[in-house]
């Protein structure tokens, strides 16, 4: 009987602490919205963060996009060739990238490349009491540190996902047309006939904006909430990657089931 009560109490306390964290995360989001006006007055801060989260992620995004596109081209060709419709390779590569792989893989890489950096930086600032020092000087850490990083993530993520899709399609083009020798005209024209701008491309962009929001807010909150110790920061960084990845995959399923009926 006592074991049973302990078990129920354990479930209750873990649920309560998760809800508390969710509430604190939502509170941080509204604080960011309130302090955004202040941080936009010094737009240079946001531009600096776009450089660190966006521009510096370009290399890994472009390289992985090219390889993902090449693999899609190869694998798609082997299967489609059996049905004698290897010209449809362009459609396959483009739809797979624009609808799913572009936003999702970019978000996973973004969480690993930029999200961890944000969490570790903010966690370390907290551990070395830089955030407290700012508050003492009557500078809001949300306006000075958090909000610019939030908007930088929201702006960078859709741009990175768009670049990922385009580079991936070029990778597929490289394998299918230049290496295997699928007809170039059929490759592009079938793609244009089957990829719809307002459905496929815009829906992919909406996905990337949602993922950008999820990854950035999770990274910021984990950093802001990290215990101010070396161990706390390292755990927070790990949690950022795990929670961001799960959130992206879960959100992707929900968004896909709404968008492409």
């Amino acid at each position, binding site marked *: 009987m006592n074991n049973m009560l302990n078990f129920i109490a354990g479930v209750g306390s873990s649920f309560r602490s998760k809800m508390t964290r969710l509430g604190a995360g939502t509170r941080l989001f509204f604080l960011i919205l309130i302090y955004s006006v202040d941080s936009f007055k010094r737009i240079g801060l946001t531009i600096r963060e776009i*450089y660190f989260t966006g521009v510096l992620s370009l290399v890994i995004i472009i390289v992985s996009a090219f390889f993902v596109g090449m693999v899609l081209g190869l694998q798609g060709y082997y299967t489609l060739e059996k049905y004698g419709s290897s010209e449809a390779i362009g459609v396959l590569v483009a739809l797979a990238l624009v609808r799913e792989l572009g936003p999702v893989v970019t978000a996973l890489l973004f969480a690993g490349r930029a999200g961890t950096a944000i969490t570790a930086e903010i966690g370390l600032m907290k551990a070395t009491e830089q955030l407290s020092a700012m508050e003492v000087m009557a500078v809001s850490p949300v306006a000075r540190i958090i909000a610019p990083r939030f908007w930088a993530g929201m702006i960078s993520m859709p741009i990175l996902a768009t*670049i990922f899709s385009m580079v991936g399609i070029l990778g597929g083009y490289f394998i299918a047309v230049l290496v295997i020798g699928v007809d170039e005209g059929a490759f592009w024209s079938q793609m*244009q006939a089957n990829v719809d701008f307002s459905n496929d491309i815009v829906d992919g962009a909406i996905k990337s904006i949602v993922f950008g929001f999820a990854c950035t807010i999770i990274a910021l909150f984990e950093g802001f909430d990290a215990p101010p110790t070396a161990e706390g920061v390292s755990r927070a960084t790990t949690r950022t990657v795990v929670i961001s990845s799960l959130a992206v995959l879960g959100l992707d399923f929900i968004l896909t089931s709404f968008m492409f009926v």
Partner: protein
Amino acid sequence: MERTKLDIWVGIFVILGLAALFGLATKVGNLTSNNIKDTYTIYAHFENIGGLKPRAAIKAAGVVVGRVNSIIFDTEAYHAVVSIDVDNRYIFPKDTFANIYTAGLLGEQYIGLEAGGDMTNLAAGDLITQTQDAVVLEKLISQFLYNKASEEE
């Protein structure tokens, strides 16, 4: 890093993103290819539309001249009413034939228009009276088997 160099890199980043979006819109998507803007709507009745879908192509002599706008089922006459958006540049005589064809063996279905010889042309809101339904494979096979059976008797 100094401010201007930072701005340049972020500028390159944003321009690269816009270029990728432009590439997706024009080269990959269909934003430019179906530039059918000004259209007039005509209607056609079919007993069976097969697998025809909204936004399917309307072709005349193989050239795309329009798109299927909507397909509804008429509950009074029990047939499908297909509304067709045809580009304003193309006019067709009143006795135009509308057939549902299949692109290739397994491809998607489209409507083929074959012009007749009437002197008056179809205007917006007109009805195409001569139509031919989609070929349903099951019907074709059962017809074939029926003929085969009657031959043997």
